[in-house]
Structures are given as structure tokens and as C-alpha cells.
């Protein structure tokens, strides 16, 4: 008998989550719809004034992306916790953190990546200069992955609560603020023709930090809930 390697377990779980999302694509699409709604509301509320929207564009894009990520975050472990799958995973011969990482990866693929792909359109709606779009997409890619990792800690801490959504937001927002600041700054710098390397490197550094700590923190929180 050979136990599955952590890598095999990672792929199996990520594939399962993607397949589940494909069966319930309406649910998986919620954050995207939210993102689009927020982005379209701003020009309506502020008026279609070119310079005003352009100035606010990086901030609006990032706040909308942050909230959209947060919206989907709550359910990352919830369904598995409620139907007993999480218990089975915790009792499988795999380190729990690798399974957490697989859930983070599939969450990011399902919400982060679509946001990144949608962002040029949103940027266009807010008159963000075209030169800033590659930077926006790169920063959003890094930022959403970072948010997925941080959110996993919050989701794991609140998994046993029935209405954990608000608590999750309160727990995660302070951790998410640096991502928001750096992401906005990078986009802003690119929009005004400056070199956005600095904030991008910072995002990478934070990502490395979160990737090496968050899975362990989330796994520990889940074990406590499963006692």
C-alpha cells in the first residue's frame, strides 16, 4: 500500500473543487458579477467625466476586486465542513496544509484569475490609460492570490460560525490593507507613467510571506474547529 504523495492529493482536491464549481457555475460566478456591478455603478454615480474617473480608477478597481474576493472567501471551507468532507480530509494521510493550499489554489483560479481577465474591460470603463493595463493585471494577479491566502486564514477561523461573513471581513481587512495600498499604488504609478517596480516587488514579497505562513495557520484553525 502506497499512500498518495502530497502532490497527488493537491491535484486531486483542486480538480474536485474545479469540477464542483463547474457544476455550480452560477455560484462561482457571483464575485465576478459583483465586481462588474461595482465597476459600472461608479461611472453612473460620478458622471462620465473623463478626468475624474481616471483619477479614481486604480482605487475603485482595487476596492471592487478586494470586496469581490472577500465575498467568495467565506465559502472556501464552509461546504466541506458542513457535509463532513473536511473531516475526511483532516483524517486522510496528508498534511492538512497541502489540502488548504489546494483549496486556496482552486479558489484563486475560480475568482482571482477571472477578475484579472476581466480587469482590462473594467479599466477601459473607468478610462484607465491603456499603458497601465499590463501592470494592473500583474498586480491584480499577485494581489488576488495574496488575498486568497489571507482569506483562507479568516475562512478557517470562522468556518464553524453560521454567520461568519462579517467577522471574516473584520478579521481579514487589516491584513488585506497592505495589498490594497500596494496594488493601488502600482496601478496609479503605471497610469501616471512612473515605473511601478517598487510596489510590485513588495507584493511579491508579501505573497512569499503569506504563502509560507497562511496554509499552516489555516490548517491549525481548521483542526481546532474539527475537534
Amino acid at each position, binding site marked *: 500500500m*502506497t*499512500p498518495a504523495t502530497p502532490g*497527488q492529493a493537491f491535484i*486531486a482536491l483542486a480538480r474536485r473543487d474545479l469540477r*464542483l464549481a463547474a457544476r455550480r457555475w452560477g455560484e462561482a460566478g457571483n464575485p465576478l458579477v459583483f465586481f462588474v456591478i461595482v465597476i459600472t455603478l461608479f461611472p453612473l454615480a460620478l458622471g462620465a467625466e473623463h478626468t475624474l474617473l481616471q483619477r479614481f480608477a486604480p482605487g475603485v478597481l482595487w476596492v471592487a476586486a478586494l470586496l469581490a474576493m472577500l465575498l467568495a472567501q467565506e465559502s472556501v471551507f464552509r461546504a466541506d465542513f458542513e457535509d*463532513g468532507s473536511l*473531516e475526511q480530509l483532516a*483524517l*486522510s494521510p496528508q498534511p492538512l496544509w497541502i489540502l488548504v493550499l489546494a483549496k486556496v489554489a482552486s479558489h484563486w483560479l475560480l475568482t482571482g484569475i477571472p477578475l484579472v481577465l476581466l480587469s482590462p474591460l473594467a479599466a477601459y470603463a473607468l478610462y484607465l490609460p491603456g499603458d497601465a493595463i499590463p501592470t494592473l493585471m500583474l498586480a491584480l494577479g499577485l494581489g488576488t492570490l495574496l488575498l486568497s491566502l489571507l482569506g483562507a486564514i479568516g475562512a478557517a477561523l470562522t468556518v464553524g460560525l453560521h454567520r461568519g461573513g462579517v467577522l471574516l471581513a473584520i478579521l481579514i481587512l487589516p491584513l488585506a490593507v497592505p495589498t490594497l495600498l500596494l496594488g493601488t499604488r502600482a496601478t496609479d504609478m503605471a497610469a501616471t507613467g512612473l515605473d511601478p517596480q517598487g510596489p510590485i516587488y513588495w507584493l511579491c514579497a508579501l505573497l512569499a510571506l503569506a504563502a509560507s505562513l497562511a496554509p499552516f495557520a489555516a490548517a491549525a484553525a481548521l483542526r481546532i474547529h474539527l*475537534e
Partner: protein
Amino acid sequence: MSEAVGLEAWELELWRGDRRLFKQLSLAVRPGKLLHVRGPNGIGKTSLLRVLCGATPVDTGRVLWNGVPIEAQRLEYHANLAYLGHRDGLKQDLTAVENLRFARAVSQGSDPTGLTPFSERLDETLTELELKHAANLPVRVLSAGQRRRVAIARCLLSDASLWILDEPFSNLDTAGRRWGDQCLARHLDRQGMVIITSHHAVDVPRHATDVLDL
């Protein structure tokens, strides 16, 4: 400690709030043996099983697998453990086959050579379960008893030697329960170990069953 093979628990004590569920509880399960944990509702049967799984830490006492504390070898222990709790642990939107394949993929690597391939075993088990016709329906549309059968099949298809089953036969009809007992007997024939809670008598002829009354 005598023979070290199997599961042993020494002087377990567990508190829930200000209530003590059990104290000075020792037990041992050896290959080919079944332990039937009995007791009224709320006495702590599930808590005991969760302690034995390593899901809940005990306040005092220890649980040994092959003579080594389970915390010291969690992955090794869980590779030999199949647990079935109150909840089936199945994804409602996946089919029975997908659920079983996933459970297998997370715990076991590629099939060892020389044994029946997994897909064949899966096929046989589904036939035995009388679930062949429903194998490709989402678990959501199955009846509670059918879902329970799929959950039991997960234990059958794992290569675990220790099964810890919490009311495995709830929702099963008489035929299902008979089938369940046969599964247990076969597992014991293979020198497997079973710890089970059940409000019904467990009928495994030719095998010694120990009873623990909480």
C-alpha cells in the same frame, strides 16, 4: 503492554465543559477483532471514536497504534484508518463514482501491482451495493440509505486495516444492514480491525466481538 499490533488506548479521560464523558477508559483492538461500543445517546460514544481517530485530543491518557502514540505518527496512522462519521462526507454535486475516486486519490497512490485494479474493485463494489444504475447520478438525488451505502463503500475501497464506524448502518434497510454485517465479517477475515457504535446488534458470525458499554 503485550503484543503491540493494533490499536490500544490507555486510561483515557475526556471532559466536555464541566461534564466528564469518561475516565480511566482503556481498550485494545487487535487484528481480526471487532469492538462494539454501546451506550445511550449523549453518553460520549462519538467523542470516544473521535479521540481514537486522533481528531480530538484527550485530556489525559494516550492512544497507541502498533505501540506508538498516534500523534507521533499521524500520517502513518491515518493511512491505516477509515473513519465514517455521522455525516457521509460526500459531495452532493458529484456522482458516487467521482466521490469514491476522489477519496481514493487523496489517500492512496497508484495501485500496487499484482492487485485488482481500482476501477475493477469500484465496479464490483457498486454492483454489490446495488448502485450500478445510480453510479453516475449526483449523490444529491440518492436516498439517505443509498448515500450511506456509498459512504460505507468508501471504507471498503480504502486499504485501511482499522475501520472506525459511527452508526454506519443508520438509514439502511434490512438488506443493507445484512450487507453491512457481511462487509464487517469480510474485513475481519482479512485480519482487519473494526470499532463500531451501533444501536443494533452487530452480527458477525465466526468472529470474536468485544463489547464496551459506556
